């Protein structure tokens, strides 16, 4: 019995250690999940979307990169876009909350995508999940994904 308690304690300790290992967000962390865009009262799901979250060196801002997203099903193109966000705070070393309002996203090459003004963006990045919601131009949008 003692051995079992010892083993469970050890596993707990190891798990605790893993969670507490700092993640370097400045090199970019990748999450995979679904992006929902509300269009005409219906939710259109972009499945299996890869999203990157990269923290600036000073930790005050971050960029969320969305690859090949589609806002409506009939859209004949997909878009790569980068959302510049302001980091609001950190719960622990691996959790960041962020927001953005009235800013333009840009392409990975740096071209502003003025078509898609961002409003009311808020979200959180953790060691396991990334969640955020926003208005992408006229489209209410939200993302939930797991870290890769």
């Amino acid at each position: 019995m003692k051995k079992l308690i010892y083993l469970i304690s050890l596993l707990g300790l190891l798990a605790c250690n893993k969670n507490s290992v700092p993640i370097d967000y400045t090199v970019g962390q990748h999450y995979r999940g679904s992006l929902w865009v509300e269009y005409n009262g219906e939710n259109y799901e972009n499945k299996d979307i890869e999203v990157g979250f990269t923290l600036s060196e000073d930790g005050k801002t971050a960029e969320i990169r969305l690859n090949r997203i589609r806002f409506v099903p009939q859209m004949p193109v997909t878009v790569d876009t980068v959302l510049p966000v302001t980091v609001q705070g950190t719960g622990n070393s691996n959790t960041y909350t962020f927001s953005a309002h009235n800013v333009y996203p840009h392409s990975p090459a740096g071209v502003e995508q003025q078509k898609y003004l961002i409003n009311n963006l808020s979200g959180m990045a953790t060691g396991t999940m990334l969640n955020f919601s926003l208005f992408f131009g006229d489209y209410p949008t939200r993302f939930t994904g797991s870290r890769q």
Partner: protein
Amino acid sequence: MVPDKILTFVFHMLLSALISLLLASPIDTVLTPSYATAAKEELPAGAPVTTVSSMQLQQYGVYNPKALPALVPGIHLPDYGSSMTSSIYVRGFGSRMENPVVGLYMDDFPILDKNSYDLDYLDIASIRFLHGPQGTAYGRNALFGVISVRSEAPDGETMLRAQLEYGLAHHVRAQVSWHQGEHAFSLGYRHSRGWFKNEYKDAWADPYNGGQLRWRWDRSLSDRWQMTNLLQTGISAEGGFAYGLWKDGVQHPVSYNDEGSYRRVTVLEGFKLRYQGEKVQVDGIASLQFLADRMRMDQDYTPRNIFTLQQSQLSPAHTLEVIVRPTRKFAHWKPTSGAFAFFKYNRMEAPVLFKREGIQTLILDNANKGIPEDIGTLDIPDNDFLISSNFDILTWNVALYHESHFPVGGWQFTAGLRLDYEGAKMLYDCTASLHYQLIGMMSSVRPYTDHYRGTLSHGVPVLLPKLAVEYNGFPNTRIYTSATKGYRAGGFNTQIFSDILQNRLMNGMMDDLGVHFDNERVSIGADRTEYKPEEAWNFELGASFHKDGFRADVNAFYITALRQQLTVFPPGMSTGRMMTNAGKSRSYGVEAQVSYNKGGFAAHAAWGWNNARFTEYTDGTVSYAGNRIPYSPEHTLFAALGYNWSKVSLQAHMRGIGPIAWNEQNTLVEPFYVTLGARASVELGRVLLYLEGENLTNTRYKAFYFKSMGNEFFQLGKPISLQLGIQIRII
């Protein structure tokens, strides 16, 4: 970089001339007028040969290759474009672009660049056409024949001759020939106002000004050593590209706004040396060649500001061939062995300028079709932008060949084999810069530049066998059959790079914006711009008979072409076509010639017929198997009658060409057409006066067809021409 190469080339030219002088130094000069070192022409066994004499060239008004069609059965050299355009069609095969299907030799020196094929003839002794693949002896591009031009050799006598003619279209042709001892000089000049008017510019589209110089030096250095040095240079400045829109069955006049011109300088310095030993005869044939040209072309051929192309080349080349034969005559064996090599460099610059309307119609309209309104509208606000494409192309070739003839009684059996290796390397450096804006998504224009650089190389060995049997047992008769193989060299599609850049620009701008189309523009890359050699097997059966002034030749052939070089629409290309090894074809047909000369009477007729069809060919979309190969006539017909009194000569001839399919679908066909020509001359002592004309019935026919941007264009054949000339033998 280029000036250094020019200097290097000039240095080699001077060195070659110096070697000529040193070799010519022995005091005891023995002139051998018959020394017209026909080093190669002893070879074609089992092949029909057509010889056009200098007299025939004069009588039929042939002063450049484009006047040869039909005179040689089965050969067609359409006269269109400019001097740069030397498309040759033989036995149903041919090529509008890249390597020709026929090799050209000038006094045994191979002319490597097709852009140098169309040169005015200066004091030509004869032109021989060796029908069918001559790959074993002649190697690359002798796929369906060889044109062998022999210039007049100095004969030890002194001769000075001048010629001047004037005709319609302000045609002026002047020539001075001077033979002195072992030297023969010729100087020629030709001018034409042009035949077709560009209605938009109210100016002649195709004026021509060109001059040529030829110096041939034959010398017998000793009993064993003989040499020939040939220096031939030409310069020309001309218009061209007299293409008129063809719409709803109506041919419109030439009408375009941008420049159409061609400038060219060619130099051939050739040196031949023959050693006649007790055991062996060795011919050394070396040449230095240089081509510098520049073509400017309105690529849309309309009065609109769409796009233009300029293509300039600087290309020096060296060739070297050694042919060895035993001097001793064996009873049943006549071997010939040879080695050949060349090296060619070509610096090509081919910028395409997209003008305002071209940006709109060729790029923006196409692009915006695929961009949803929700995303925005692409705009390129530049008035024009340039896609520059620069190429450095190195080509080299080495070959070893052998042919053995085995005479047995009236029979002669021939077997030959050539191992040919051709390599090529191309460095491409393309750049395009523009400004763009996706209106609706971007608030301001943004510069975008694409550089596309890289290297391609290939090397291909080819084996070219030959088997022939001749029977000469009947008097005055030669019966032959042969199986021969020829090849046309592979290469690079340089002209498609501007299309590749267009596609890269579109995709690059969209990448820049982070936008990906569901149906993304597919574009080939540089790695798919190479094409391989085309090969063909030719099976020949023929006979010739000659007696007194009568000569008759008839031959039948069957050709199967493999890896045929054909133009296709590559995936994603908006305007361009490219050469690729897209298909297989076969052709069979008959060629016949009859001539009769007695007293002052001369008659000559030549007919060629072929049935050349694709057996496999898909242009990327449609299969054309079973259709006629376009651009090559099904029939060529030539007939001439002449009579020569002691001082007066009259001659009339006709040429018939066609039908010609203008497209792979065979939906557009030029019917068989006939043109008439004639010449009358009178000799007054040392003076010869003549009046000659071509297309005397002013037959309207089409010489060339192509499509550009969905529009169809034709160039018409030249209308009636008349020239009055005088030739004076001064010394």
